[in-house]
């Protein structure tokens, strides 16, 4: 007993300096977003935004930019500018410039994956253009980081964009027979998250345009809520269908050695809006259903063609195939993938077309 008491006393006296270092929340500069660009001399340029909470409840944003070759180097330089120690724990958004993404982002993602204080749900995206431009803009009331985070979230939740974050990207990157993808942010008068950036391994290789996002999402996941535009041949939108529920199944055909892949999409929807003079009735709805099926199948065909040309597999078909095939060989699959017979089969059911009083 005496020994224990002596031990405890010694511990208290000698180890008192070994306590963990404090990180008091209001004494930190909390990084909310990071953007990576390439400078003309091929150096990495990091831009961070730090929300500055004012006592009248408004938020101003401080933006810091530095260049370097390593992220840590940039961070050290940035720290020498900031009034409070930079803390990365509340990182919400990570943006990569197209050029950076083309060079590969494995290393730059790893810095965040290895830091336990960074949440694995931090959103990632590729920017068409300068990330610094995106981060220095004036947004509504929040700072850039929080605004972008909320913008991403609402698009993910409402199904307009398949979800992406550090975790999902890493999962796709290291999965066999699967390639990652990220949302692609376009910068114009407004900053929009509307396209999809396709990756081969960790390198950005191509993109899908805005009007293919819905079909891509339907081929990738079961999802809800987004609205699909049915077009006439001239490209004019004639009807809008809101997705109640879309389920997809992947069928590999009868011979597993020579797979014929069919992606079955079953979509239930509500007809929200339509451009026609006549009254809508059952027959009309059936016609719209058919139109939508054809259009989606056509889009799917184009998507698959793009994917096969780029030899990327963001849909994770290889991963599915691996689950059915004991002797899965990734190299073989890669060779096989380009020439696979992949078709999409869409079945649209319009459940209602509104109620009139």
């Amino acid at each position: 007993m005496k020994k224990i008491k002596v031990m405890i006393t010694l511990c208290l006296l000698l180890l008192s300096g070994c306590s963990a270092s404090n990180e008091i929340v209001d004494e930190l500069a909390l990084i909310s977003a990071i953007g990576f660009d390439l400078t003309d001399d091929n150096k990495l340029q990091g831009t961070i935004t730090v929300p500055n909470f004012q006592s009248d409840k408004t938020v101003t944003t401080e933006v810091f930019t530095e260049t370097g070759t390593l992220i840590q180097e940039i961070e050290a330089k940035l720290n020498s500018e900031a009034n409070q120690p930079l803390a990365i724990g509340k990182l919400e958004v990570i943006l990569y410039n197209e050029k950076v993404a083309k060079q590969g982002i494995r290393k730059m993602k790893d810095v965040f994956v290895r830091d336990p204080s960074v949440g694995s749900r931090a959103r990632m995206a590729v920017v068409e253009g300068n990330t610094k431009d995106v981060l220095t803009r004036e947004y509504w009331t929040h700072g850039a980081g929080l605004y972008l985070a909320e913008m991403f979230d609402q698009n993910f939740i409402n199904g307009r964009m398949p979800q992406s974050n550090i975790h999902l990207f890493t999962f796709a990157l290291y999965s066999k027979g699967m390639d990652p993808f990220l949302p692609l942010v376009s910068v114009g008068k407004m900053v929009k998250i509307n396209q999809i950036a396709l990756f081969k391994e960790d390198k950005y290789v191509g993109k899908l345009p805005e009007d293919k996002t819905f079909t891509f999402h339907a081929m990738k996941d079961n999802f809800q809520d987004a609205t699909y535009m049915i077009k006439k041949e001239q490209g004019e939108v004639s009807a809008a269908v809101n997705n109640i529920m879309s389920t997809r199944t992947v069928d590999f055909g009868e011979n597993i050695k020579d797979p014929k892949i069919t992606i079955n999409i079953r979509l239930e929807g509500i007809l929200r809006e339509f451009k026609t003079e006549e009254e809508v009735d059952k027959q009309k709805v059936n016609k719209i259903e058919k139109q939508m099926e054809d259009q989606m199948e056509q889009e799917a065909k184009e998507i698959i063609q793009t994917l096969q040309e780029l030899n990327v597999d963001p849909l994770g078909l290889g991963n599915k195939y691996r689950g059915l095939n004991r002797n899965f060989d990734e190299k073989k699959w890669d060779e096989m993938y380009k020439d696979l017979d992949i078709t999409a089969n869409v079945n649209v059911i319009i459940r209602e077309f509104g109620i009139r009083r």
Partner: protein
Amino acid sequence: MKLFRKKPKKNKKVSQLLDQSKQISSMKELMEYCKESNDFVHYEHPIKNQSLWLSYYKPLVEAEILHRDILENVDEETIHSLQDLMESIPIENVVITKDIGVIHEKLLSGHIMIRFHERDTKCVLVNAPLKKTRSISVPEVEFSVIGPKESFVESIGTNLNLIRYRLPIPELKVKEFTVGNLSKSKVAVLYVDGITNQENVNTVIQRIEDIEFDELIDSSYITQIISDNPRSLFPQLLDTERPDRAVSVLAEGKIVILVNGSPHALIAPANLTEFFAAFEDYFLNPIIASAFRIIRFFSVVFSILVTPIYVAVLTYHYELVPKDLMGTLITSREVVPLPPILEAVFLELTIELLREAGARLPTKVGQTIGIVGGIVIGTASVEAGLTSNVLLIIVALAALASFTTPVYKMGNTIRLIRFPFLLFAYLLGFLGVVLSFCFLLAHLLRLTSLGRPFLEPIYPPRLKDMKDSVIRFPFSWNTKRPIQLQTEKTQRFSAKKARKRKDIDE
């Protein structure tokens, strides 16, 4: 030396005094010794042919009994002997004795000594005690809106009456003991023979007999002396001021301890969940009662953990703050010069100060202190930038939550164990909170009440006892007595008959 060390043999014929070497062995010595105290009355009362010598302690004797019942009746010529005297007094338990020890003891418990002559050694002792007690009032600590409104008072006789008329069965046994070298307090142990586990009864009796104390004032003294672990912060005997609660636990097979002079009965063995059950729960619909109990349980957990979690999160784990809350937290903390731990300790101590000041002051001033403290100090300290208003809300809520425990003693415990949690939260963050929670759990696991596990029915898990712990099931489900008590008769009533519908149609 051996001679002195030898204990003097217990001799009923002498009266032992505190000073061990001194004893009174004759009536003359006794009278002289008693007369040293001015409230001892010793006088000659003349009746027609002879006179009576009356001696008694004035503050202990009811003058009306003396005049109306005793002196009125002895004023006759027929009295020639003590025997005649005894027969003429219409009071029970009149004793004729020569035993000095007995005489002294009885004088001190409100008897009147009557003799024919001052030098007589034989006397008659008549019981005429003066009882000045508070009348039965409404329970104040365990107040309930519905249900009985009686509470125990300071007199053990009244208290026994309150219990006995609710439990009119011969099996209700009362064992009385005298505890305290000076106070000679009457302690009664109540149990229902045939239900209560005899082992429990023996444990209580043995522990009470072994008490070595001089002035036993209140039942809480007994709690502290006979608890299984007297150093624990947690009360291991439940105290109650409600006779209805005492009776209902007697029927469950528990033991009730009453102390003369204390308006609180003790209930043993107790378990942790009972401390969060108000007796009013039994008067309400089981669903409503269960909901309130769950709220109470959560408020206790909340009360213990919320400030430590605040300190831990703000000091170490800023990642956990939701992004929408971040702005509120930071803006409210921005002007505060103190680290979260000092801020929290400062506010917690303020609340404790307020409570302590409110409790020590007379009611009317106490209320003012509560308002002044709550509003003025709270707002002022936020405005002065000493504390953040988020923490002010948290601390106030935690304090409020700690008062939801129906048992006052448990409320005190909960308020105090926050502080070690706070300290560890500051030193180690969440790890510290978890660590101190582990200590708390380990301590609770090791606690026993009369040798029965204190954390039962949570650990050891006894599903059947869960029926009346955090959730209260309807009466018809609680047909068995708690397993914790190991009762001699486990069945309370027939489950089959209780659940049978009494409709004529069926």
